[in-house]
């Protein structure tokens, strides 16, 4: 293929700029809110730029974003819940993933189908039974319940992806270790696991993010303010409407997004592969 002509270059750049505008638009509208110090509640007039540039909203949100709850508590809850859920999904799912990647046994096809199916289910499909079951166990309104719920959402996905990761490691590598006298478990621990680690981390990251940004289902498992997560608090701010300056809402949204955006840009290629269920080459 030849290099493109000047006019085509120009046309392409203009098109891309239009799409860029579309991408930026809602982000900019949020920024404009976040940096506006003049807002007392919702904005009442159209502005392209903030009326008074200020970062007080960010300061306020980093201290007490929602009613009297500390940012620290919210962040701590978010991290505890999301990290534990991802960790449980990974650790408990790992052996199953390995079995499906390496061995042939009766019922394997059916099992794979079941895992893929459960990975594709909406979180709501687990919410209904877990809500009832955890209420029966009388732990519904604890952080532990949230961990269990989010782990249940994430586990099928993690199993499927770890399986893909294990499968992509050549069997020969394992066989060499096996011939040197290492058992199944040792081979897994010292050979396969380290090799598959990057993919496992990314799979864990995805289920971490699912828990990190979940709010609607989480609200059903909360009664007291001390188990609220960041994502829930941002939704609560939307619900509470005009009680607070909307700049808080905008700045919390930005604060919550920045770490995730950085992770996505750094790991885009692997993330894409994992999110396509190991389907890209």
């Amino acid at each position, binding site marked *: 293929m030849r290099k*493109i002509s000047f006019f085509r*270059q120009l046309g*392409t750049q203009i098109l891309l700029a239009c799409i860029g505008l579309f*991408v930026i638009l809602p982000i900019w509208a949020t920024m404009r809110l976040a940096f506006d110090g003049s807002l007392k509640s919702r904005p009442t007039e159209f502005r392209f730029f903030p009326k008074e540039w200020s970062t007080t909203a960010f300061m306020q949100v980093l201290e007490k974003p929602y009613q009297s709850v500390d940012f620290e508590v919210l962040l701590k809850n978010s991290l505890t819940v999301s990290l534990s859920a991802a960790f449980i999904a990974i650790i408990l799912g790992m052996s199953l993933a390995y079995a499906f990647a390496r*061995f042939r046994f009766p019922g394997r096809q059916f099992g794979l189908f*079941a895992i*893929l199916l459960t990975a594709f289910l909406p979180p709501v*499909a687990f919410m209904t039974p877990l809500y009832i079951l955890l209420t029966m166990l009388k732990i519904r309104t604890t952080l532990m319940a949230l961990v269990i719920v989010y782990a249940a959402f994430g586990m099928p996905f993690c199993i499927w992806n770890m399986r893909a990761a294990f499968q992509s490691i050549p069997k020969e590598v394992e066989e060499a270790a096996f011939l040197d006298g290492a058992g199944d478990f040792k081979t897994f621990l010292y050979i396969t696991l380290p090799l598959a680690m990057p993919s496992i981390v990314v799979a864990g990251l995805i289920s971490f993010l699912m828990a990190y940004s979940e709010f609607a289902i989480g609200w059903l498992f909360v009664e007291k303010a001390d188990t609220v997560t960041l994502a829930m608090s941002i939704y609560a701010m939307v619900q509470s409407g005009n009680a607070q300056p909307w700049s808080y809402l905008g700045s919390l949204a930005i604060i919550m997004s920045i770490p995730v955006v950085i992770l996505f840009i750094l790991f885009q290629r692997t993330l894409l592969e994992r999110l396509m269920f190991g389907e890209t080459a």
Partner: protein
Amino acid sequence: MKRLQISLRILAILFVITIAWIARAHAVDKLPIDYDEDDYLRASQEYTHLIRASNWLGFQEANYRPEHPPLAKILMGFSLLSAPEEELTPDAPTTAQPNKNLPVDLVKPARTLNAVFGLLTVALLAFLDPLAGLTLGLHTFTIKYVSQIMLEALPALTSLVTVLAYLQSKKQKSKTSWLAASAIFLGLTAASKYLYCVVAFAILTDWFLESKRQNGLGNFYKQVIFWGILALVIFFAADPYLWPNPIQRLKESVFYHAAYSSGAAEVQNAGYPFWQPFAWITMSPAMWSKDAFFIAPDFFITVFAFLGLAGLWKKERVYVLWLGFAFLFLLFWPTKWPQYIVIFTVPLSLSASLGIQQTWQSAMDRFKDRKTHKVVFAKKESRRAVPWLVPGLIAFALLTVFPLLFQFAVSTTDFNSSSIRDGLNGGIWNAVWGGLTGQAESTEMAITTHPNRVNFVGLSSYPDVFIFVSGRGTLFFDIFWTILSVSLQGFLGVSVALLLWQRGLRLGKFWQTLFILPWAIPEMIGVLMWLNIFSPETGWLALAVRSFGANIPFGFLNGWESTSSLWIVIFLIPAIWYGFPFMMLAASAGLKMIPQEVYDAAMMDGADTVQTFRYITWPLLLPLLLPAIIVRGIFAFNQFYLFQTFYYRDATLATLSYNIFNPTGWDITGQFAVSAAINIITVLILIVFVYLFNRWSKADEGVTYA
């Protein structure tokens, strides 16, 4: 052998006719009086009166509701001859509520006559294809509108005869008599209800294409003119109301519809979006009157009809044209009444029949394949797998499988927020156990009641829940949404990937990183960002319109919340924004895998850009994109946060399930069992998705495991 086949076919046809009659007779008895029935009964009564008085000249002046031609009303008038004379049904405006007090001894014969026409349609279709006959015989919207005092039954029959006669004329040497028959029935169709004449467009198109293929266009025009004139003559002959003043009265009746569709209060108040005809064919009138129907298979008929379309086109093009013209017309016509879909339920049934046959055939083929490839498992390997399987399986069973099984158990009860105390203290177990062992009688459940003890309802809730989710439009919207949002995301994603892929493009990396942003922002925050723009009254757009007037770009979107056709645009914009980066990345990854040599070869052969894309890039790229398309499709089908945040709380199955479950929610709340049943329905639908995913991706086990 041949004789056996023929007798089997006759048996099948008789069976279909019997089923169809039972369904229709039942509907005649059970359907409550609906809109318009009083109007058409009054019209028929006027004719009965004239017939009794032998006042044949009076036919020229009688035609209550003159916007519709009189033929169907006249025939209903004859059907009332057996009934005692009753007072004329009072005149009421078209906006009036249904008149519940119509005399039963009049309703019954008029409805029965229509049901007989409906049965004849089924019988004709059954001769052509018994399965299609059965499909039409059980299609509940068809049953409803051919078993009421409506004008649908007769033209539905005559329009089918029009097509069948035309098809005969194609096959026979002596065309004229069949063509004449086709024209006569077209004329009768027009004299019953204008709308049904869309078949004429299908016939003309097919006829034109066929003649063109045979190089006989000259003959075609001659025949068409003969056909058209004959149809017109019959129409005129069968419409005595036109005789005294043809032009004026025809004009009035036709223009009435144009005015009605754009001005009538009931059309405006209904507020149906442009795609409503699509929605009707996924619903069933069982949502309004459950007792009148035995089963409600309309949704499945539509699904199979979709699958059978290609086959039907190959087999007999004119039916697909019929379906297509009818559909296009209804999409653009502003009036969206459900009875209009009866104009195409015949070709819909034919297509569904083919779809069922094809699905059955391919299922059988796959089943046979399965038998030939039996996998042998090494015992040793299976044993080695056990220590790995056990811990993982326990966790998977506890966290995933058990909740799903429990959910299924809950769905067989009527557990809700009022029976929560009983349910949590063992009520669910007692109900399910009692039901399974037959100790407890299973009771009827209703979606809006809250009994305070848990009862076993068995699987009986599933048909009701299904009718509920389809009747609410949720099932339709979910599928429509999935198709629309994924195709638009795919279109933009692939376009951007192609733009970025051009050799020598500057700033490529920069643009790509910028475009990843929406994908990287958590969905719920992205949705909030868009809510900040589109929120009614307080959003950026609304504020901008307030400051600068409605003529700014995209200003027309302001006020979307009160125009049902605009909703979907407002939801699609964030969905495209959020979804296209993923498609772009997938397409970019795919494009890199296409070898350069292919393009060198294409360039040497002198292919231009469009040809290169059409014949090289797209076919090579599509298989690489399919997994991404399905993953996005499933995401769209399960879309929740977008709709929840925009307060569209029955958009998808997931949103509906959540909001019905939520004890402190909206509308219907705390119906735990209904929510569970919706989730199980979601599982069943996703099984289809997973099946497709497995088939289309290399994840298919036989291939990757080596």
